[in-house]
């Protein structure tokens, strides 16, 4: 399975990406090509999982990379290049999530899976649906932590907030997801595992 982790990137990678951004700031298209190759798929997959829309993810990815091209001169080196690029993606995704229209089919109306993996499949669906139901900032924070594997400090830099705010968002996201799972969807199964505190 694909795993995207930026939290463990080394100093040499950061230094290389900083040099790339400097070259991009000087309108070096080869440097942009290089950055594109290392970020396009990662950004697209991240944004697809956030938006659940191929079209939206494609447009947002291109928009993020175009902003990197235009604003590379504004990168001051105060954070990792990856944090700076993800910060751009975060702000654009947040704006998109706030205005998007999504039609979710209520789970209870869906046909039950009949194979032996069905119960587990549906349970994982509920987890995903509970993530989709989160407010945009909490959803983005959950995805930065769990999909991109960022540390608390890195997540805070990307979101432009203190680490304590990131922890609070994760706490509220966990509470909302638990409420969604326990009370609304599968009282028996989730109650057993993650019942009342």
């Amino acid at each position, binding site marked *: 399975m694909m795993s995207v982790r930026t939290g463990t990137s080394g100093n040499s990678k950061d230094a290389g990406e900083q040099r790339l951004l400097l070259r991009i700031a000087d309108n070096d298209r080869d440097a942009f090509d290089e950055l594109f190759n290392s970020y396009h798929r990662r950004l697209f997959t991240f944004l697809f999982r956030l938006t659940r829309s*191929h079209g939206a993810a494609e447009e947002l990815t291109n928009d993020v990379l175009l902003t990197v091209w235009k604003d590379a001169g504004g990168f001051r080196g105060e954070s990792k290049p990856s944090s700076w690029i993800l910060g751009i993606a975060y702000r654009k995704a947040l704006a998109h999530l706030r205005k998007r229209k999504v*039609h979710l089919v209520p789970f209870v109306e869906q046909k039950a899976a009949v194979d032996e993996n069905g119960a587990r499949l549906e349970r994982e669906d509920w987890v*995903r649906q509970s993530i989709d139901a989160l407010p945009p900032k909490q959803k983005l924070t959950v995805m930065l932590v769990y999909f991109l594997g960022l540390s608390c400090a890195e997540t805070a830099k990307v979101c432009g907030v203190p680490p304590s705010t990131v922890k609070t968002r994760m706490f509220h996201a966990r509470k909302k997801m638990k409420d969604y799972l326990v009370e609304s969807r599968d009282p028996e199964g989730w109650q057993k595992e993650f019942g009342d505190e």
Partner: protein
Amino acid sequence: MSKVQPGQCSNDARGMIPWYVNGTLSDAEAALVREHIDVCSDCQTDVGLHTRIHAAVIENDVSPITPKTSASDILSGDGAARSRSTPSVGNTRQSMAVAAGLAILGVALIAWLIVDRNIENTNRQFQTATSAETGANIDYVLQLRFDAGVSEQQRREIVAQMDDVVKWTTVFSGDYEIHVRLSAPTFVALEQYRLRAESISGVQSAEFTALQLPMR
């Protein structure tokens, strides 16, 4: 360390559980969390929930087919805009020039589509092999594009015609992306489903753009 009563946990370790689960805590921080979890049932429950969330996000979610955008597409504006509008035509000479250009483009497009369809078929065959191996249900994302003039109401009615397998739909720029669940899909079943969508009046095209991988 004494046991923490349920509902009484106020330890700082609780706020660090998401990063304990994603493995980005330092060794010392992770040891602190581990020590606390041993005596706190609330945090044990939290670790279980966060582990499940982490697994659902990272291991088994939708795996989209990456678009064929290039860096130069983005810099030329093609990638960013992806405009679907047709060019406006002024006088007759311009019209003829545009028509000739479009004809050439049309031939090129048909040739590209033939090649592209073969690539897509290869992708689908690969995906089908994956599902055949597991025998599990797989969710696919079918992107529907509509003819010009099809109203929002008509679009919803078209999507409703496919609702026997639809899980949810996403709307973006007037296109609908239908997330469908097919039991043990085969290439033939996928193609039949796509053709069924394309045969509905008002649908310009239907293409699979992603799949959701089965549980381990």
